[in-house]
């Protein structure tokens, strides 16, 4: 039996469900998540790493902090763990204010990018360390270490030293070491960045499986948007120390809150336009918008939501279209990538190979069409 504190829960728990659990929960406050960051901030001399961050993580959810390097995501994680003192705001866990607690009293499990195993101890001693600190009896320590080692599938390697293990195995030990103490919260700081691509995919699934099986609340820092989308219940996109958007992977991808999120999460094409109500003018053409806007805007469309059609095809009510000229085609098996010149800008368009049996030739004039609801529009900056 794996060590469990929280009851196992089904996949894809929604916000509403999580809130219902809060209603019946014992120690949680009425509002906010199990982990609640309230106006968390970090200032260094002449530089603010994190601005007034508000973030709620419901019990049992895995939330990613996603952003480019230097966006403050790791600083945020370190403030949650108590490794970096906060300049302002509070960290609450289950309604309890943890802001001024030292790391050793926070009861959080940490998994680092560098694994941070104790090199002078065997796998077994590494995993047992947290339990020894809790003054747990020898028999129970042995039992729980055995369970944790089995959970990360490292049986038979208990007596090895960290340097005798591969990178993936070392990260498994780090995971077991953090899990065995049954922490209230599990914190990951880019845990997969040092692994090669294949191992990374494997560990992704494994971490997600274990996290869901144990129903553990977790925060996962990453700069890899694919990782964040694939693993996490919700993703908090950060930029320059601010939270840009918090949402499910679908929300972030389909309804990004601003141009930064739109271009950081997935790839996107941009086109400047002039908006008048629900219409936007691009040169001679008119595009339909999903909601009324005014003035200079930027229209954005995902590459794989665009259809290529022969030039001059008639527009319909439910689609937008622009004209372009094919500049480059790349055949990559499951899809064809086109670079299409549109109004002086290079757009990228992706077509599944089944839909377009023939490769459109370079130099061909084409119409790019997409559904109105796939049209994202943002006010131009400045």
């Amino acid at each position: 039996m794996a060590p469990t504190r929280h009851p196992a829960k089904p996949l894809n728990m929604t916000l509403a469900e999580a809130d219902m659990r809060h209603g019946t929960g014992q120690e949680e406050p009425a509002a906010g998540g199990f982990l609640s960051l309230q106006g968390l901030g970090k200032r260094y001399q002449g530089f603010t790493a994190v601005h007034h961050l508000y973030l709620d993580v419901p019990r049992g959810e895995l939330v990613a902090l996603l952003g480019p390097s230097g966006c403050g995501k790791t600083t945020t994680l370190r403030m949650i763990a108590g490794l970096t003192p906060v300049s302002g705001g509070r960290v609450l866990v289950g309604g309890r204010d943890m802001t001024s607690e030292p790391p050793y009293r926070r009861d959080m499990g940490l998994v680092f990018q560098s694994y941070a195993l104790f090199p002078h101890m065997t796998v077994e001693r590494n995993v047992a360390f947290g339990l020894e600190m809790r003054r747990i009896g020898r028999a129970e320590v042995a039992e729980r270490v055995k369970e944790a080692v089995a959970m990360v599938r490292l049986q038979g390697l208990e007596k090895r030293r960290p340097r005798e293990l591969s990178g993936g195995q070392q990260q498994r030990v780090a995971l077991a070491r953090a899990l065995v103490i049954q922490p209230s919260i599990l914190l990951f700081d880019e845990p997969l960045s040092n692994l090669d691509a294949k191992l990374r995919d494997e560990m992704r699934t494994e971490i997600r499986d274990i996290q869901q099986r144990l129903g553990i609340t977790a925060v996962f820092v990453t700069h890899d948007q694919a990782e964040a989308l694939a693993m996490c219940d919700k993703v908090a996109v950060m930029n320059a120390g601010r939270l840009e958007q918090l949402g499910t992977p679908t929300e972030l991808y389909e309804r990004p809150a601003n141009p930064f999120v739109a271009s950081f999460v997935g790839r996107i094409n941009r086109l400047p336009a002039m908006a008048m109500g629900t219409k936007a003018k691009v040169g001679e053409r008119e595009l339909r918008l999903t909601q009324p806007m005014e003035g200079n805007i930027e229209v954005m469309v995902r590459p794989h939501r665009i259809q290529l059609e022969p030039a001059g095809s008639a527009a319909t009510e439910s689609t937008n279209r622009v004209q372009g000229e094919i500049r480059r085609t790349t055949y990559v098996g499951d899809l064809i990538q086109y670079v299409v010149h549109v109004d002086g800008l290079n757009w990228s368009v992706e077509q599944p190979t089944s839909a377009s049996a023939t490769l459109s030739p370079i130099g061909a004039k084409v119409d790019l069409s997409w559904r109105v609801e796939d049209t994202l529009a943002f006010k131009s900056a400045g």
Partner: protein
Amino acid sequence: MEERKPSWLLKVTVTVLFVFLLVPVLVIVPLSFSGENTLRFPPDSWSFRWYGELWSNDRMWGAFRTSLVIGAVVTVLTILIALPAAYVIVRLKVRGSELLYNLFTAPLLLPTIVIGLAILIIFASVGLLGTRLGIALGHLVLTLPYALRILATALNALAVTVEEAAASLGAKPLTVFRRITLPLIAPGLVSAGALSFLVSFDEVVVTLFLAGPEATTLPVEMFRHLESRSDPLIAAISVLLISLTLAVVLIVHRSIGFSTSFTR
């Protein structure tokens, strides 16, 4: 890695260097078995008489014991001071820790004779001249920079995240230090200790200023002996000193490996 065969030129150069560095020292060994009254190589007759002389020379044995005691005390004091200092400088990064580090290691750059003179002037006014305590304190000035450097390097090489991981698992700062930091910098500690002992044990320049009739160390006693006489007694003592130094190095090597101890 592929090993390359050394060229004949490299072999010759290395051989010449070895001869240059080691032969003078190796000459000492046969000299100590000389049967003559003066230091001349090669000796005309062989004997163990100078080892016998050494055995019955109370002054030398007294100085040897003093050197051992001072060396031990200096080693312990050095570690007790350098370890917390290195920790504060490397880990806590307090304001001015860079300055502290430079101040601590500055004696490495100063001519030893200047240090000796400076200490002489200060100690003369506080009555520490000619005492074992005075010599030990003088040696401390020389050993601290080495120890601090070695320990700071060892601490720098230890990732902070390892200590943070221990803290997140519930270990209080002292427990982290005892169970994680200390074992991981043990090689640094051993080499800092060994080096401190050796520096103190064979120190001459500063000790010459501080030693007196009541307290004198073996190297100073040897120096004084050479001033008046040049018999092979010195060679016999030297063989003893070389053996002791080798023993210390061997112990260090056995416990942690030479390359990780002195080259880090």
